[in-house]
């Protein structure tokens, strides 16, 4: 088995956690997967990658990958692939990795599959579509190695305690193909993603009783990560949160992976703003609230108990 390759995204904080998951995926059919790590900190990351199953790590610490996202990485990968002919290359379904995979497909003409949740072998993978209600099995053809994008958290990373052989690489990226260049970075502290883009939306309604209770949602959001806080019209009208929080027919429309509503009854005017959510959780002390019937998971209970308990439980899970 020449092998499963894993594109380990190197961020400013080190290897992206998804990289370890990809190694776990790779190890389901290849005992000695290879990881490609491009960017400052790549060599340093090799140890951790090895500890999660990578047998070999191609590492290049050149700053060009951080300065010019996407194109240089695809260029280097293309060269490597031509030289080493792997069977498959796995990517995480993140914005950055996706860009690399997409460009790579353009240059080497390989098959590319997105949103995969598991792989059987280099030519067969599985994905969920239509909001997770259908599973599709896909067969990948073509000459070059297939590129498979796997959803983060589709598998748990497995520490193996191994060590990887590090192969240093030179980045030889011609000036004219470097593409766009980063000139500034802005971190918007603590506010997290916008409502329209967030994968998880936590919304509070009349049941929260006042502006202070929104702090519970803020905390839950920061513990989950990548979550935004919104509100129903009742909370906005009452002045507890600004209009930018409003979700509904005269507010924003959101389509997150998970929509968690606390203290919202679920009037039509609100529902039209979130009915596209893939999964809906509703917490309400009124068992007759329409949103409970509509939700994938309805919780009849006191949100002032459930929300902190939930936050604690998630914190506990993430800590371990």
């Amino acid at each position, binding site marked *: 088995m020449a092998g499963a390759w894993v594109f380990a995204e190197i961020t400013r904080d080190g290897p992206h956690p998804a990289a370890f998951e990809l190694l776990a995926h790779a190890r389901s059919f290849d005992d000695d997967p290879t990881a490609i790590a491009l960017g400052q900190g790549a060599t340093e990351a090799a140890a951790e990658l090895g500890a999660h199953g990578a047998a070999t790590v191609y590492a290049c610490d050149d700053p060009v990958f951080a300065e010019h996202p*996407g*194109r240089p990485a695809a260029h280097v990968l293309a060269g490597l692939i031509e030289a080493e002919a792997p069977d498959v290359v796995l990517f995480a379904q993140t*914005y950055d990795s*996706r*860009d690399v995979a*997409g*460009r790579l*497909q*353009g240059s080497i*003409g*390989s*098959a*590319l*599959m*997105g*949103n995969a949740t598991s792989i059987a072998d280099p030519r*067969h993978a599985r994905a*969920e579509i*239509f909001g997770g*209600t*259908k*599973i*599709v*099995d*896909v*067969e*990948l*053809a*073509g000459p070059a190695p*297939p590129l498979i*994008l796997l959803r983060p*958290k589709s598998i748990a990373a497995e520490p193996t305690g191994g060590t990887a052989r590090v192969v240093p690489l030179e980045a030889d990226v011609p000036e004219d*193909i470097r*593409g*766009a260049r980063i*000139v500034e970075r*802005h*971190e*918007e502290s603590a506010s997290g993603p*916008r*409502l329209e*883009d967030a*994968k*998880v939306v936590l919304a509070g309604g009349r049941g929260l009783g006042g502006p202070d209770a929104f702090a519970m949602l803020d905390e839950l959001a920061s513990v*989950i990560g*990548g979550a935004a806080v919104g509100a129903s019209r009742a909370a906005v009208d009452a002045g507890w949160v600004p209009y930018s929080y409003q979700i509904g027919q005269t507010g924003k429309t959101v389509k997150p992976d*998970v929509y968690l509503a606390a203290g919202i009854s679920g009037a039509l005017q609100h529902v039209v703003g979130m009915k596209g959510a*893939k*999964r809906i*959780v509703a*917490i309400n002390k009124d068992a007759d609230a329409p949103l*409970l019937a509509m939700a*994938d*998971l*309805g*919780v*009849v209970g006191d949100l002032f108990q459930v929300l902190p308990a939930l936050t604690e*439980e*998630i914190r506990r899970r*993430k800590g371990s």
Partner: protein
Amino acid sequence: MNVVVCAKLVPTGTPTLGPDHLVVRSGTDAALDPGDEYGLELALQLTEQHGGDVTVVSMGPDEAGQAIQRALAMGASRGVLVSDPSLRGADALVTARVLAAAIGMYPFDLVVAGVESTDGYTGTVPVTVAEILGIASVTAVRRLEPSDAGARIERMTERGYDVYECPLPAVVTVTAGSVEPRFPSLKGIMQAKQKPVDRPSLQDLGSRDLTATQTVTAVTDAPTKSGGEVVQGDEAVGRIVELLAEAKVI
């Protein structure tokens, strides 16, 4: 600044699969992908401020002409529809090759698309198009302005945004909510009928390899996820956590 916008016709309700495991695109209610409307709006604003034309390109069945009409009604100057039965079931690579060939037939400074389509959500076709055309690309764009270096672009990140200087021509994908798509006026709809819509054939686009690289072998129903259950008491927190895990959120 001439801009080409990629547009896709997607089903408006829940998409359904045909017996060949492909999404049914004909004979159902379909419309211009809402994600593409953001790209189109950005393109229109850019050309309104800096001059130039917006050309909208779409690959799909005949009905994709509807998506093009809507784009023309919103203000695009020209439409391009590539429609061939052999393209049914085209995967990302074939789509990218066809689009790149069609786009290459027109002068452009910028190619704009949505971040991902609402029915496929792979999100890689635009950058593949960029690679084939040999130009730069920036995805998840929330703001773009022409600059001396080409364009100054703000790209969304998990923590905020990064600013790029990008040489033109380039491909960008635009995030939802970055601009407010305009509602086409009736005047726009009437004028749209007079605007040119080119229909290049596959031959016009030049020969290239259009064999699909993936096939769907089976479609099954997912095991019933936590659908419509109601819990209370102590098990509530646990169930929520399970759901979040199933949704790959934690």
